């Protein structure tokens, strides 16, 4: 049995909640995607299979709608809407990102739905929450991110360059994560004897509380963090953490060596690579490796010896980075106990031996094309009830007869 078997979710197609539906569907929920007769707009989002633009070939749509069934319903047609209401009566969760007021105008908001389905968990995801006029305004992932806070903290030391928004529609993902947490929390409450309920999720609020120290520094003492290249925004500038390796690729070195054991391992690695002789600062690494008592990091900048030792760690890493590839640097540092990461492009991690060994890339059969494709896999490994893509994304209206027919 899968985790969410026999939990039925009706998802009114909308970009902000597509990922929420996928997260539930891949864990076994019966997620029914409801599209308008013309199909959801994202069916025409690139990239397409073999770059052929077609509503059944969007890889974007394929990714976000795995494991779901798909029906067509014209919400503006009262007869079709009645069918949908019957379907929602059988649902545990309604997931939607409609403009506030739209479902009320159609006579199908929570107050109506809960009369016939009191156990329903209705999760509404909007830009600013159901009660804000701003939720009626057009918005994109980019503008939601700007309003919600992340870009202020992201970018470069050079502030003549604009703040940066990361790719991948993370505003919608963040809204979706909270939609899923909410749905599950409400289902647990219902399972313990509680009623169904309405949940109001705000995407910009979700982003506001997904900015780490930017928010809580202001809340605690009125400080304002400033963006820095490739590392945490901070109220005071901190040392660089990205290094370019011999193959031109980048690594993130995280926290530089700061414990005697780490100085020792770095020194040993320099020796193994035959680089110790050309690194005069090795003497400071040796001092660091043999340091007795606590190595007081708060004295960096004021105590000359401690500063020199700390700097020699970063410089030693820089020397090594200039001689080997980013991947070798990552493996070498981690084997030396230093938490360092190679900066992969998304497809590179897909081919990395660790993720392949864990079975992350997942084959999904496309019966209609008589082909299989490798999809992103499990975000978590449930040992008893595994994550699984149970089917490819639905074709437009593929399950309309099956789903509505079962209601008659």
């Amino acid at each position: 049995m899968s985790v969410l078997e026999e939990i039925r979710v009706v998802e009114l197609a909308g970009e902000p909640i597509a990922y929420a539906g996928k997260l539930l569907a891949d864990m076994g929920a019966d997620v029914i995607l409801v599209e308008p007769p013309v199909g959801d707009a994202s069916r025409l989002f690139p990239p397409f299979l073999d770059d052929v633009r077609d509503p059944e070939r969007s890889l974007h749509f394929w990714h976000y709608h795995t494991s779901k069934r798909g029906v067509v319903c014209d919400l503006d047609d009262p007869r079709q809407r009645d069918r949908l209401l019957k379907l929602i009566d059988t649902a545990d969760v309604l997931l939607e990102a409609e403009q506030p007021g739209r479902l009320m105008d159609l006579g199908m908001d929570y107050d109506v739905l809960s009369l016939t389905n009191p156990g329903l968990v209705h999760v509404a995801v909007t830009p600013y929450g159901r009660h804000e006029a701003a939720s009626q305004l057009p918005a994109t992932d980019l503008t939601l991110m700007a309003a919600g806070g992340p870009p202020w903290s992201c970018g470069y030391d050079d502030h003549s360059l604009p703040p940066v928004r990361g790719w991948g529609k993370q505003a919608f993902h963040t809204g979706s994560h909270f939609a899923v947490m909410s749905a599950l929390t409400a289902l647990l409450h219902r399972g313990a004897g509680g009623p169904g309920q309405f949940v109001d999720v705000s995407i910009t609020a979700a982003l506001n509380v997904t900015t780490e120290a930017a928010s809580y520094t202001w809340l605690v003492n009125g400080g304002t963090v400033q963006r820095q290249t490739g590392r945490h925004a901070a109220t005071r500038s901190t040392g660089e953490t990205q290094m370019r390796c011999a193959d031109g690729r980048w690594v993130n070195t995280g926290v530089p060596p700061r414990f005697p054991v780490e100085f020792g391992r770095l020194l040993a690695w320099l020796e193994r690579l035959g680089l110790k002789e050309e690194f005069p600062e090795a003497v400071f690494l040796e001092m660091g490796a043999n340091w007795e008592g606590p190595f007081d990091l708060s004295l960096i900048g004021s105590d000359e010896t401690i500063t020199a030792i700390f700097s020699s760690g970063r410089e030693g890493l820089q020397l090594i980075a200039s001689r080997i590839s980013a991947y070798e640097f990552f493996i070498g540092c981690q084997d030396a106990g230093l938490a360092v990461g190679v900066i992969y492009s998304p497809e590179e991690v897909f081919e990395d031996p660790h993720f392949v060994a864990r079975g992350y890339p997942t084959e999904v059969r496309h019966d209609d094309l008589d082909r299989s494709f490798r999809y992103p896999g499990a975000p978590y490994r449930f040992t008893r009830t595994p994550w699984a893509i149970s089917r490819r994304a639905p074709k437009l209206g593929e399950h309309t007869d099956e789903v509505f027919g079962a209601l008659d």
Partner: protein
Amino acid sequence: MPGALEGFRICDFTGQLAGAGATKWLAMFGAEVIRIEDPVRQGRWDILRGAPPYKPGQSGLESGGGFNNHNVDKLGITLNLRTDKGKEILTELIRISDAVTENFAAGVLEKWGFGYEQLKAIRPDIVYVSNCGFGHVGPYRRYKTWGPIVQAISGLTFSSALPDQPPAGWGYSYMDHTGGYYMAIAILMALLHRQRTGEGQWVDLACTEAGVSLNGPALLDWSVNGRAMRDAPVNSNRSQYVPMAPHGIYPCAGDDDWIAISCRDDADWRALAGAIGEDWTSAYQAADTRWSQQDALDSALATWTRTHDKFALEQTLRALPIPAAAVQKPAERIERDETTGRFGLWPSVTHTAMGEVRVDGQPVHFSQTDWQAVHGAPCLGEHNAAVLTRLLGYSADEVRQLAEEGVL
């Protein structure tokens, strides 16, 4: 008001943000989260305990602003697991808990004698959720990560950049936040499965895998079409895949002030061009031209935005309406933007040592069983007596003796 998760008890070893953020959600919805810390190291495994930011005039172990933010409404006890009695008390606590949660490096809890097999022996239906960078299985299982390392490995750092620049990455631990969301989802799903079937299980969460999944369409473009993101320069302020232009973050008149603007289609562009009212805009009537000549378009648009106040311009563009939002600084989104305050996003909690502090609330509201934020993070061992006497049946004298013996 009873919480949605009232009646669930979590034996919680999590810390930092990636773990503590997950159990914060549970605690704010009424679960009894009992955080266990090491008295010998004064709970300093969690590097945020006692770390800045501090309220003015405060500092030290009980004053960490981030620690308080991530541990709202949890109980805190200390247990010295180097002692037999400490292990015995932990065993008693596990026996009455629904879930055990941790985000140590892989293998740490097992080394203490509390791996999944041992947990299951104590309580067969226990839910155990572990969260670390690379998971407990696979070639990199011994490797260590922080949020920025997870982001580097998973492709999220690479896909956040401007052209001709190194990766900008994320100026905070997006994957500590988001890893916490996946951990919360995993705990909630496993509890739901247990509620429905009586079966417990272990969930092995690898933050990197959760992160890789956040670039889904790029992975399919690779695995299906063979197109690598590595091969094309990234400008992540632009639209990814869907051809929207202009689409970026543009300078405004104030100090480090910026505005995000997205034109989704011809109608948006015509409205924006009307607001600009300058001749150069006529060269960009065709969507194809706007998309293929974004560099020139962006620079012309930036010349115009630079003369405007960001909030005045936001108001002008939203009235058109087209998607636009000022890049908000922390003070602006917390104090000036009334939507976050009206949502109740910054509740004040009472911390025993810090006093009143505002924290990140949750970006959702439940109609029946909403979250609450009352108490700040626990001080070290603050609830030793309460938990041991109320839940485990120890007398006050026994608790005092255990403290003297160094067990607590």
